[in-house]
C-alpha cells in the first residue's frame, strides 16, 4: 500500500496581540492554494484570528516565553486548522452572545469570539492536546457553501 503523506503547514507565533494577523495571512495562503472561494477565505481568516487571540490572551496569558501553534492540514476538499496554546482550556460553558443584553449593560460587550468561530466555519471544537494544552479545531469544506 502507498503511504499517504498528509500535507500540513505549521506556524508558530509569539504570544502577542497582533500576530493573529500573521496566522490570518498564512491560513488565507493555504486556503487559496486549495481553491477556496474568497468569501470562505474571509470566514476562515476571522475564525482563525479569534482562536489565536484567545490562545494568546486566555491560553498563554500574554506570556512572551510561550508561543502559540497553528497547524493547517489539507485533505481532499477540506482544510482543518488547529490552534494550540499552553493553557488549561475552557472551564465553563459559554452562552451565545445576546446583543440586547449587551446593549442594556446586562452582559459584557465582549465574549463573541467563540460564537463567531462556530458561526463562520463548518466545524469548531475545543479539546485538549496530549501535552495538556488547549486545542481549537476548525474545519472548512470546499464543497459546502456558507449560507
Amino acid at each position, binding site marked *: 500500500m502507498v503511504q499517504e503523506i498528509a500535507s500540513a503547514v505549521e506556524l508558530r507565533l509569539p504570544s502577542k496581540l497582533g500576530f493573529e494577523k500573521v496566522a490570518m495571512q498564512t491560513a488565507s495562503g493555504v486556503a487559496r492554494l486549495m481553491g477556496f472561494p474568497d*468569501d470562505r477565505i474571509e470566514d476562515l481568516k476571522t475564525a482563525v*484570528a479569534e482562536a489565536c*487571540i484567545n490562545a494568546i490572551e486566555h491560553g498563554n496569558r500574554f506570556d512572551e516565553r510561550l508561543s502559540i501553534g497553528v497547524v493547517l492540514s489539507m485533505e481532499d476538499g477540506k482544510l482543518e486548522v488547529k490552534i494550540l496554546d499552553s493553557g488549561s482550556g475552557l472551564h465553563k460553558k459559554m452562552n451565545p*452572545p445576546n*446583543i440586547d443584553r449587551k446593549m442594556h*449593560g446586562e452582559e*459584557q*460587550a465582549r465574549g463573541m469570539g467563540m*460564537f463567531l468561530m462556530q458561526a*463562520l466555519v463548518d466545524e469548531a471544537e475545543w479539546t485538549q492536546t496530549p501535552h495538556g494544552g488547549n486545542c481549537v479545531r476548525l474545519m472548512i469544506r470546499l464543497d459546502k457553501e456558507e449560507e
Partner: protein
Amino acid sequence: MTMQPQLNTRAHVDKVTSPDGSAVSVLRFTGDITSTSRDVVFGAYQDVPADTRKVVFDFSKMEYMNSSGIALIIELLMAASKTDRTVQSFGLSPHFQKVFIMVGLNKYTSLHPDEATACAAFAD
C-alpha cells in the same frame, strides 16, 4: 529589543448635512478596530457636537476588525443611545456585514451601501 506590533487605528469625525438639512456627524474608521483602538475611537467620538443626534459610522477604510473591535462598536452604540443619537452605518465589506448580522448589531445600526444612503436614512 522585542518587536511591538504597530498601532494601526485612526478615526475622525466629519460634519456633513443630511438631505433634509440637518447636521450629521460621520465617524470614519481607518485601519484596525481591535482592543487597542479604544482611546482613538472614543477620542474621535468626543468630536461629535453635543447637540447632534444623527451619527454615521463609515467603515469603508477599515481593514481589520476582531471581536474586541465589535465590542467597542457595541460600546459606542450604547453611548450613542444614552444621548438619544441614531447611528447609521456604511462601507462594511460583505464579510463584515455578515458578521454584524450574526451578532445582531444590525438591530442597533442599519447597514447601508454608501454614505448618501446612510445620510438619507434618518427619520425626522
